[in-house]
């Protein structure tokens, strides 16, 4: 079966480097550097305990990114289902023997690193769907049976992640999956109908939600109702952002973070720390970086000549965007606290690696955009 996939225009390594997409490498490095600066500040001007580890992880991740990017897209195309199955199995392992962290099982301890398989599962779902839709015809996209099969690919891992329970990640996986459905040409009425069903099912979800998840939603609706409990995080975050003003309090001068009023400042609330110290300028600067990364991803999808690459790069770009958006909207009090890190910036190994792996795949699509992937 693999023999039948034919690739034209075999690229030399030099050509691959030329076509790598250095713009994205630059954007990623700038964004990660914002993270290093913030982590350095979060530790009151120390590289330890966060910034130094984060820098090491970034370089390891960047090497991984280059390797993934240089590997021919056909291999990723071939391995998609295997990766999906591997990710799925590791999710089951987490479910069975995973360590307990923050009241939810999310980690696999590999000794040197605690891996969060659900992070990688997001990419695996995108890859599997991209492959699934790669050769679908217009008729297939209207075929209920075909679409149902595709949605199984999403529903299975989402159900497992929900069991952990990790509402935030399961929503993210669903959203990334949906973006591929959308790109592949699924009729719009299906999304509308699906949306309606979700609205109807919402009260039932509510019933099965954990208390802390309900708290987060309720607190989001009215953070001042419980200023010392769950609403505290959001209030303190808004104080930090607001008091930063236009030009910020200055590097290492953020009082809210320095004096520990800001919770989780090195992970989920790191955008707040950044915007407190660097102000509106810093915040908007970071939003622009995110915007450019997004545009880069979408343009790769646009230029890619094969469906797998189109769907994959679009899914990764949307996934990255969703992560960033949810995190920033959360710390600004626009949506409930869901516990999503800010990609490339928040302290955390799995998140950093997963994002760089995703960008590696995106760049592989970019390098090999003219490859011909055929499936007999």
């Amino acid at each position: 079966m693999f023999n039948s996939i034919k690739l034209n225009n075999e690229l030399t390594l030099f050509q691959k480097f030329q076509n790598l997409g250095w713009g994205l490498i630059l954007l990623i490095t700038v964004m990660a550097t914002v993270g290093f600066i913030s982590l350095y500040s979060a530790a009151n001007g120390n590289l330890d305990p966060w910034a130094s580890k984060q820098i090491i992880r970034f370089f390891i991740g960047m090497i991984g990114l280059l390797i993934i990017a240089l590997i021919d897209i056909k291999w990723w195309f071939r391995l998609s289902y295997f990766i999906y199955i591997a990710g799925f199995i590791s999710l089951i392992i987490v479910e069975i023997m995973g360590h307990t962290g923050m009241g939810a099982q999310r980690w696999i301890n590999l000794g040197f690193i605690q891996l969060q398989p659900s992070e990688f599962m997001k990419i695996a779902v995108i890859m599997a769907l991209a492959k699934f839709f790669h050769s679908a015809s217009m008729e297939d996209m209207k075929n209920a049976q075909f679409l149902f099969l595709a949605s199984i690919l999403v529903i299975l891992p989402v159900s497992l992640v929900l069991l952990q329970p990790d509402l935030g990640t399961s929503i993210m996986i669903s959203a990334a999956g949906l973006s591929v459905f959308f790109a592949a040409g699924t009729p719009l009425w299906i999304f509308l109908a699906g949306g309606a069903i979700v609205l109807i099912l919402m009260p039932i979800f509510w019933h099965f939600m954990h208390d802390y998840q309900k708290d987060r939603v309720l607190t989001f609706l009215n953070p001042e109702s419980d200023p010392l409990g769950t609403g505290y995080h959001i209030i303190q975050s808004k104080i930090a952002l607001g008091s930063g003003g236009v030009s910020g309090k200055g590097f290492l001068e953020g009082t809210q973070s320095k004096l520990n009023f800001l919770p989780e400042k090195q992970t989920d609330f790191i955008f707040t720390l950044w915007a407190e110290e660097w102000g509106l300028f810093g915040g908007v600067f970071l939003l622009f970086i995110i915007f450019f990364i997004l545009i880069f991803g979408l343009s790769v999808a646009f230029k890619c000549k094969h469906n797998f690459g189109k769907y994959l790069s679009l899914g990764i770009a949307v996934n990255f965007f969703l992560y960033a958006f949810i995190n920033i909207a959360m710390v600004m009090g626009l949506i409930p606290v869901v516990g999503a890190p800010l990609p490339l910036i928040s302290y955390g190994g799995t998140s950093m690696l997963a994002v760089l792996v995703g960008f590696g795949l995106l760049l592989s699509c970019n390098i090999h955009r003219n490859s011909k992937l055929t499936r007999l």
Partner: protein
Amino acid sequence: MLDSKKEKIFNRRIFLLGALQTVALTALGARLAWLQIFEGSKYQVLADKNRINTKLIIPSRGEIFDRSGVPLAINNQNFRLLIIPEQAENLKEVLSNVSELIEIENWRINKVEEQAKKLASFLPIEIKDNLSWEEVSKLEVNISELPGIFIEEGEIRTYPFEKATSHIIGYLGAVNESEMTDDPLMKAPGFRIGKTGIEKAYDLNLRGASGTSHLEVNVRGRKVREIDRLKANQGQSLTLTIDSELQRFTQNRLSEHKSASAIIMDSKTGAVYAMASHPSFDPNLFSKGLSQNEWQEILNNPAFPLNNKSLSGQYPPASTFKMITTLAALEGGFFTSNETVYCTGSYQYGDDKFRCWKLSGHGYVNAISALAKSCDSYYYELSTEVGIDNIAKMAKKFGLGEKYNFDLTDEKAGLIPTIDWKKQALNEKWRPGETIVASIGQGYILSTPLQLAVMTSRLINGGYAVKPWLVEYVGQEKSQEKLWPKINVKNSSLNVIKKGMDRVVNDKTGTAFASKIEDENYSFGGKTGTAQVKRINRAERALGIMNDDLEWRFRHHALFVGYAPLNNPRYVCSVVVEHGGSGSEVAAPIARDLMLECQKRKPDQIEAQHV
């Protein structure tokens, strides 16, 4: 292969997604701008409220001095032993090491351990207050082996004269709810305000103004650094008119009696040189904190040590009132000073018989000899013609029955009865017999020792309406020069009074002749008074019971008002010994000693100075 229709859909949807995400990012930017520009100042305030803790700096209380600059109330160093549990690591061990060095009661250690469980571990806990120098030095030497231990220097109010000035100076205590004001100091932990005496009356001057220190604190309230500091303003110091040595002498002179009070003042200026009330209390105990036993002891004492009797004790003035009755008769033209009355030992008015204290009678007496001998019958006779309202008018001119808005609180007004007063207060008609009783300062009349001193001052200073005062300097500011109005009485009348008071002491017929000062340079005049508390009834008299035989609380009050020197008088004193017996036997000797001491010290010649 890509079919073109599918690619068209795909491209359209990429643009749609890109547009949606751009809108979403723009929304984030707008939200950020809203928070940081439009609501920025609001959150700036909230952020500062988070991080800035305002700490009050307590000002040093103003000190109080006597007229020569001798300190009466000062702030001594107070050393407190504190421990920060967080730094101590092993709290129990450190505490036991400390108790090997200095004596610490077990309950104190228990209390520290209890508090350490409740409070944040970086907050200091007091182990012991009022450390001695010896204890401080022992601890300082070993401080490096006592982690978490430190000694904080504070101030404790100290009164060097202890019991001798307690009624004038007063004492400090914790703030009551009813005393609460806007002053942030009032809520400072351990802050004390004046509760009585000068400490209370001049509390605002003595208190000073608080300073503030802005501390940056972290989320747990731990101090990170001091941002700025506004110094506290020390309270103003006070210089009193009091002469501390004379004050101490006066207080000691009263101590042989169960309950007594005395005042020495300047008849010309109104300055009070000494003001004593016995029994007294040690205000230093209040600074250190009274034990329950000590407090109960003070409260249960039947002689009320906390009361300043020279201001708040109200007694019948008895015979010391006779000058007023005399003046009312002379000034009203009812009698001349030479007109005589024959005293048979009693005075018959209608069916009632009023006794003179001398049952055998004084024979013929006039205004001067009646004062000297304190003949009651003379005043009985006068009063029936003068009437109570004229007597009351004269009494008020000389400062009886009124408050002076004196520098100390707790001042009582006494009582000068009139016909109208009785109608209003008791709804009864004034009976003529009551005028007769009033003429010798008994019946309804009440006066304080301070009022009697003021009355005597006005009688012998040429008729100027002086009022008493106590404070010479508030901070650097000298109190205003006082110009006292002249009372509308004839000098000739006042001279009669002065002559009579001279004879009380210096004529062998005088009731206080036994207390005469032999050295003519220091001789003094005055008037005795013996205030009846309980009438001895006929049955008791038949049994031969004398007043001295009665239970203490029924015995007479002994009174004396005096002045010195005889020529050109300056100093005035008033003495009341509660239930002490007769004025001539008990009060006059005290007055003699006070007037002698005062003339030797000449407090008016000590120029009061700002310290």
